[in-house]
């Protein structure tokens, strides 16, 4: 369970996140949708304790992220999949992550298999394609078998087959009762992935509703989305 209450983050004069409140519940995929610069990534960084809010709070399982013990066993995060040091082998990258949170190293091999990188475990990450880095990032997020997942644009760089694989994986993770928050600006992808949508524009909440509520018969999510964020262009 993720709870965001009155979350605000000001960068110099600009309000990146402006009084945002929403709850992400377990057992379903919540899509976090908004145009570029809407504050999706900033919200996720605030949620993960990578940045301090100007006002308001964000909690995971009732606690601010920085108060969680062994956080990787409670929250799995994928922000920027390219933010890895290229000189390290895929398995080594997961080894240090596992070690830092007291997670068994035995999980590393199984997870690399799960994300389709079993063959590349001993290869240096610098030679990976964007899609392979996304898969590695997802393996890192799942390393601690967390109940909550926070994923920023996880389908970026994946080929069509990879996108479908990712969608099926997220659905099975939600079906296991996990809380899944996935950001995207790809509306068509969200329309077939998410059960629930949180729509933001210019740092403000525009909608927090089930997919079925937003998409009335005869309209598309794209039309609904464009209607919701209309007038938000900076």
């Amino acid at each position, binding site marked *: 369970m993720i709870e965001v209450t009155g979350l605000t983050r000001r960068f110099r004069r600009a309000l990146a996140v402006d009084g945002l409140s929403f709850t992400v519940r377990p057992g379903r995929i919540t899509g976090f949708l908004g145009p570029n610069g809407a504050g999706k990534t900033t919200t996720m960084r605030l949620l993960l304790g990578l940045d301090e809010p100007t006002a308001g709070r964000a909690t995971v399982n009732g606690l601010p992220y*920085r108060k969680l013990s062994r956080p990787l066993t409670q929250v799995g995060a994928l922000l920027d999949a390219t933010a890895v040091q290229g*000189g390290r082998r895929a398995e080594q990258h997961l080894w240090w992550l596992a070690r830092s949170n007291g997670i068994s190293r035995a999980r590393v091999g199984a997870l690399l298999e799960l994300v389709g990188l079993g063959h590349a475990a001993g290869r240096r990450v610098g030679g990976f394609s964007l899609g392979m880095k996304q898969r590695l990032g997802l393996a890192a997020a799942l390393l601690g078998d967390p109940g909550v997942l926070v994923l920023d644009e996880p389908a970026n760089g994946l080929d069509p087959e990879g996108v479908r694989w990712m969608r099926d994986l997220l659905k099975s993770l939600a079906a296991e009762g996990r809380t899944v928050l996935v950001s995207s600006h790809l509306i068509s992808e969200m329309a077939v992935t998410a059960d629930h949508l949180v729509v933001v524009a210019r740092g403000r909440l525009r909608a927090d509703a089930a997919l079925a509520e937003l998409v009335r018969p005869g309209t598309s999510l794209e039309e609904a989305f464009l209607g919701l964020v209309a007038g938000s262009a900076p």
Partner: protein
Amino acid sequence: MSAVAAEWIKLRSLRSTWWALGAGVSLALALTVLGASTVIARWDPDRTADQAAMGIVVAVYVGVVLAQLPLGMLGTMAVSGEHASGMIDTTFVAVPSRARVLLAKAAVLSGVAAGASLLIAVPGYLFGRLVAARFHPSALPAAAWTVIAGGTLMIVVTTLVGLALGAVLRNGAAAVAALAAIVLVLPFVARTLPWGEPVNRFLPTYPALQLIEQAPDIMPVWAAFTVLGAWGVVPLLAAVAVVSAQPPRLE
């Protein structure tokens, strides 16, 4: 402890670590071998067994001086490399306490720096004894331990100052430049100035050189150890304070 173990995996899984260590140790060993042979060849034949042993230890730690810069760079890279790649975010998601991350890196780097100094000192010492065999050097006279402790502390401190600078400046090139200024440029400039001696008492380099018998004594041994030790602790704690306050990333 798990943060320390994780940082050790990180450090040893990068090739740049082994390049920095390989370059530092082999450069230092080469200088030790050359220097020791030259110095020992000029020794007075009446030198006692204790004087010979002391001379060997002093010659060995000249090499450690040279290994400071590669090790200091290793210290900066251990954190600036994560900022450059963006992996620092993953590190802080895994270990949210900035202080714990930085202190874990400091623990690992201290061990590596002390290990590197041993990798230079032990072979250098054995080589020195071989070259100076005709003086029948004793094992290790009491005074040699000051040199050994001072030389080891010197390289550990330089590595930790590098880490602190890397953590605060976040940019590898800027941090290495600042490190070179503190360890090399400032002490050299201070030596050429009339009022430089009091300044040098408070920089890390002169106390270190005094302890390893490479500069005339200008302060008591305890004072030299205190100043050098403070350079290992104070910049690191300042960096912990700065990083924990976490200046916002402006986007």
